[in-house]
């Protein structure tokens, strides 16, 4: 996807204010995510990272003030891995409620191999470990055509090689003109410009 | 008045018990519908007053301590 002449932002959030249980988590946040950018949202636990991501992804439509517009379809990977234990990884991705196009079995197998699940395609997801189940979810990063990714702590329960592979995938996605907004407790070392958004500074300001 | 005496009004040719019972229960209901909100508003105000006073005390003690 060549960068369009004047880069239109994939995601624009204007003056977003989120309050949870009386505590002001985010106030007056404005954000523009341009193609090729990777944003890392930092903050201590409970600083509202997940709430912000849910608002940016359009999952929570109430409970916040301000405007969020998404110009492109979105891939959201949350804390929970959206994997049905009774289905095999192959079936999980083939029948995914995410609504993306139909993927051929070979695409799915290639994606599962990329996240290190080669050979596990047909066991029931219930028999796999928690880390492996999260990888089924992460396999969607290799399948989904959506340019905008919003990832909530994608690296939890993933070992070191897995993290490295994912960081390469992030860089590749950013270079291809996609954009990523993610939260993570460890700094991202990616061959791309990473913009940081710290929710602690936001609240302190 | 349709009834010639209070006695007749009470008895209502035998139906008085039902009629007056129904009116009594409805009166209780109406009284409850009117009294409950007023009472709960005053209670809410009292609770808020206590909360404000406690906040004040906390703020003063914080100043005092520093």
């Amino acid at each position, binding site marked *: 996807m060549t960068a369009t002449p004047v880069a239109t932002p994939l995601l624009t959030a204007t003056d977003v204010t989120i309050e949870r249980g*009386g505590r002001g988590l985010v106030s007056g946040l404005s954000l523009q995510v341009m193609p090729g950018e990777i944003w890392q949202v930092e903050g201590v636990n409970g600083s509202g990272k997940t709430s912000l991501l849910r608002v940016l992804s359009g999952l929570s439509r*109430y*409970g916040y003030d301000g405007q969020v517009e998404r110009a492109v379809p979105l891939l959201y990977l949350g804390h929970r891995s959206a994997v049905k234990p009774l289905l095999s990884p192959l079936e999980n991705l083939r029948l995914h409620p995410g609504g993306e196009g139909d993927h051929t079995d070979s695409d799915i197998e290639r994606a599962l191999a990329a996240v290190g699940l080669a050979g596990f395609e047909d066991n029931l997801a219930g028999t796999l470990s928690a880390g492996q189940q999260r990888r089924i979810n992460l396999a969607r990063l290799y399948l989904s055509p959506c340019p905008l990714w919003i990832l909530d702590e994608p690296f939890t329960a993933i070992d070191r090689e897995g993290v490295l592979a994912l960081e390469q995938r992030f860089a590749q996605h950013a270079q291809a003109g996609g954009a990523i907004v993610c939260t993570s407790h460890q700094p991202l070392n990616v061959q791309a410009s990473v913009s940081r958004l710290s929710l602690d500074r936001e609240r302190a300001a | *008045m*349709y*009834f010639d005496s209070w006695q007749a*009004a009470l008895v*209502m*040719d*035998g*139906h*008085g018990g*039902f*009629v007056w*019972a*129904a*009116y009594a*229960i*409805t009166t209780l*209901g*109406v009284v*409850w*519908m*009117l009294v409950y*909100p*007023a009472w*709960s*508003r005053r209670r*809410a*105000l009292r609770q*808020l*007053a206590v*909360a*404000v006073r406690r906040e004040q005390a906390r703020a003063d003690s914080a100043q005092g301590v520093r």
Partner: protein
Amino acid sequence: MWSFFHKLGSPPWLYSIAGTILRWLLPITLVVLVAGAVWGLLYTPPDFRQGNSYRIMYIHVPTAVVALAGYYVMAIAGAISLIWRMKMADVAMRAAAPIGAMLTFLALVTGAIWGKPTWGTWWEWDARITSMLVLFFLYLGVMVLYDAYDNKEAAGRACAVLSLVGTVNIPIIYKSVDWWYSLHQPASIKFTGESTIDSSMLYPLLLMIVAFYALYTCCLLMNMRTELLRREARTGWVRRLIVEEGKG
């Protein structure tokens, strides 16, 4: 007009306007209620078929009518809060539920008492009473659902959806219960569907219906004021209010 609609959204303004309305509406309501009751009880002739027991109609019919209307008021408030996201409409819906439930309960009790002299049983599965019972459960459903949610804003929205679903279903429930009653019960005394009601009985009934509508409005406004206080507890205008009430 638009400024009025906008102002309706500001809690302190609504709190004070409700107060002023109540100051004159409440006494009028009480007077009309007592007048209607006395008129219906003592100054109207008995019904040639049912004798004096029909006097319960002067409280059964108004409570039933306003209870049903109350459900629609609640649903409309819910719809406004859901569609235009007006907090005040959510307050109104929250305040309307218990009043409607109480009115439905009163309608059921007075209907049951009225049934004893008319049919000889305390509970007669008459069409109107059965539909009223279903309406009572609809009210309970809304109140229980509100209580089940921890996040009270989500609770308000969920109740708005439920009460809208309820309003769509109420006409269907009433029609099907009417049909069900006529299927199993040959047309005996049609309970409240008095075909022609003598004018001497009609006027007190209309007066009582107006009285109960006024009562509903008063209770709604009073409940809304309490609800406003609870929701706006940390704002400045409530603080000033507490200070005034403290001195007053």
